């Protein structure tokens, strides 16, 4: 039976693991941390996925997104706290320094031209290599969870 307190502790562990190591913990790592079976840890992962706390790869127990962190390499690379993280999207590349409360150097590319873009966050202020940078939100908020990969 899933316990509510344990559920949120596991969410916190997954996020802390991302922040500390740049990757999500496996189900086995989470099971070992909480002294529960891998099967139980998997059930908690599924429940957190269902509650949109993080998102698993289709039909697996691998964390694909714990926004703003990405479980896979992307075009949005964030260097912060001496580590390199991948963000899910152009919003999340700024979400990582916001979540870490850290300065950051971001390497990204324009999705149409392929032009490389550099963004620096220092003491909460932004500096960027291209003046007219824009972020496109393709879907209204009400539809964000229809297809997260597209969103």
């Amino acid at each position: 039976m899933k316990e509510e307190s344990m559920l949120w502790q596991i969410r916190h562990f997954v996020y802390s693991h991302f922040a500390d190591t740049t990757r999500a913990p496996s189900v086995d790592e989470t099971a070992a941390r909480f002294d529960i079976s891998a099967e139980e840890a998997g059930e908690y992962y599924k429940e957190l996925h269902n509650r949109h706390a993080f998102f698993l790869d289709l039909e697996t127990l691998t964390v694909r997104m714990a926004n703003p962190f990405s479980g896979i390499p992307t075009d949005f690379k964030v260097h912060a706290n001496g580590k390199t993280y991948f963000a899910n999207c152009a919003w999340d590349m700024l979400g990582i320094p916001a979540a870490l409360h850290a300065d950051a150097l971001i390497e990204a590319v324009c999705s149409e031209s392929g032009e490389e873009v550099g963004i620096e966050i220092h003491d909460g202020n932004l500096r960027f290599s291209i003046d007219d940078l824009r972020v496109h939100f393709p879907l209204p908020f009400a539809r964000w969870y229809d297809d997260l990969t597209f969103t």
Partner: protein
Amino acid sequence: MLLFQSEEWIDKWCKRNNLECGEVLTIQQVWELSKLWYHNRLSLEYHGRSAEQVAEIFRQAGLKSKFWYIQK
């Protein structure tokens, strides 16, 4: 959400993908939104947020168009 070097490149991307353009924000607007949205994401106390809380974040970020409408 994708990054573009200017609005002109968003138009090209939308045309090439046969998609209607959505909402376009400056990088500074997205940074302000990010701070409101993600500042407490690593906290043990963060358990998600209600529709009302999301609406309040959008309001604080100055996002008031229908695009950001939230069904409560």
